[in-house]
């Protein structure tokens, strides 16, 4: 059994069922349009559930049906863009914090800092928020030397601000807190 495929199939089936249930609120038809706004999301959610079932069943049977072309061989999966030789994470015996491997910590760190960025942007404005957040991201990504972190942060913030706000005239969020 391919547990990843079975579990992701079940989650996708649940999403499809939720959308189907949710679409009950959409008006079903109008005088000129027999199908109405409800039909298309319902049709897609049913197909979504069927595809999810297919994934669950093939995952249960441990089959991977690759894509392909009529008259041709099996489809070539498109190679990922990143350097495949770099492992996804440090070795399993690497230092862990709270049971999590360093790569996982960096991942959650990035997501958390990005979430903070979207919250503080309207409060303290683009430049202060970027200075704080970019410094944090550079450090999480593995650069700890203070001078380099400082220069990198100022450099990235300055280039982005000058290019997009000053040259392209884009409106960036301003502080509402002060």
């Amino acid at each position, binding site marked *: 059994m391919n547990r990843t495929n079975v579990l992701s199939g079940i989650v996708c089936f649940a999403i499809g069922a939720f959308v189907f249930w949710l679409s009950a609120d959409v008006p079903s038809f109008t005088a000129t349009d027999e199908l109405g706004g409800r039909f298309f999301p319902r049709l*897609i959610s049913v197909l979504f559930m069927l595809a999810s079932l*297919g994934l669950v069943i093939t995952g249960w049977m441990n089959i991977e049906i*690759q894509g392909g072309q*009529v008259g041709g061989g099996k489809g070539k999966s498109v*190679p990922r863009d990143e350097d495949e030789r770099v492992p996804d994470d440090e070795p399993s015996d690497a230092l862990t914090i709270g049971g999590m491997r360093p*790569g996982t910590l*960096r991942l959650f760190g*990035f997501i958390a800092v990005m979430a903070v960025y979207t919250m503080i942007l309207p409060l303290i404005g683009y430049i202060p928020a970027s200075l704080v957040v970019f410094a944090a*991201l550079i450090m999480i*990504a593995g650069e700890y030397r203070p001078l380099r972190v400082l220069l990198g942060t100022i450099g990235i913030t300055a280039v982005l601000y000058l290019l997009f706000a000053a040259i392209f005239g884009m409106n960036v969020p301003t502080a509402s807190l002060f």
Partner: protein
Amino acid sequence: MIEVAAIGEALLNVLSPYTLFFLVLGVFIGIIAGILPGINGAIGISLILPFTFGMPPATALIMMLGLWGGQNFGGGVTAALVHAPGAASGAATLFDGYPMAQKGQAGKALGIICISSAFGWFLSTILLAVIALPLAAFALRFSAPEYFAVGIFGLSMVASMATKNIFKGAIATLMGLLIVTIGTDPFSGLPRFTFGRFELMDGINFLIVMIGVFAIAEVLVQAQKPNVQAKVQAFSRELPTWKEVRALLPTIFRSSGIGMLVGTAPGAGGSIAAFIAYNEAKRFSKHPEDFGHGSQEGVAAPEAANNATEGGAMVPLLALGVPGSGAAAVILASMILYGLRPGPQIFTEQPVLVYSLFFGLAIGAVVLLVLGLLLTPYLALVMRIPKPYLITGVTGIAFMAAMAITGLLFDVRLVLFFGVLGYVMRKLDFPPAPMILALVLGFMIETSLRRALIMSDGDWTVFFTRPISAVILCVALLSFFYPIIREVVSRQRAKRRQA
């Protein structure tokens, strides 16, 4: 259908210093984006798109096409110098590009990559101009049922081809179609799945999804990996001789033809074309034993093919309004954002723009040739940007791009949401490209379906009684179910053999 005045105006437009400047800038950004691992054409174009809103549509689109072509070349550069493709389209180049670099012929390898890329790009532009016009003239007969069929055909090809698991491809496609239904119903004007939020009334801008699913997801993937810097070989600056280039011309022409044909099929991108061209070059070569050990033909073939897919992918995009790849989907979406209607009408409604794109592509190939050869000695320096600054910079650009699209902070948060979704999809091997194409095609599919049924008074046979629509829908169904049938048949054969 060919208008001489429009051709003249388009040529003057493309040769204006303003457009040429942005074309050169686009090619330059594309080369850099291609060299940097993880930044592909779709990401590059979606990141610069919000900043082109003030430009005339033709200039902005030419800049994006330049970026796309430059990116294909840049991917090959990284493949040759560090044995890892900067973009997926450069994957086949590393088989012979890297051995050439190891032999101290890095300059020659990069020169061949540049010349082949420029030739492939240029030749595909000529073929584009030849094929797109008659195809568009034919497509003018299309009505709502045919557009619905074309949309389904585009989705079925992408969902079935560009994936390791056909059900995952289908789920990604259907997820894109579900996202399209968020917002105001195009027929009744009533809200759907907006949860009372005014920000969702206009639906979710697919650029937001794209920046999240491609750029932010890539940042998260890179953040998780250890901070390892790619080792770049010291390399010679010696370029290929004219004699060597002449010997490669048959390979370049053949591979360009392959790239062009493969590119026209939705879902079959530069990487697939490059692998097919590489295999064909080996089959036709007088020295197949050199392949894998630094064969110049082995470098020229994939590079000519992957750049030729650009012209190929523009054929269905311009003639039918169906994008052939992720990058083509962003170009299509950009055209919609500029108020253009991609599809056969564009040839009669906007002839100057169409011819400008043809000339822009052709001149872009020349720009790539000159810029690529000039920059060859310095390209390796880009790979020395330390990863912490690189991924932080990409994060900064991605959020800035999200802010530029609508100016709503809600959309900036959505970018992060779709970034996490894109990361999860990549880890679970759900392909993101079909989702993006579904987002672009979804509106056309739903409106064509409903319009066709209004036209036919609710008669569903309308899709199968009209011959063009019937043929396209049958091919779509066949292309989706073929891998499943093939798998069942091959399993039964294996069982019989065992018995």
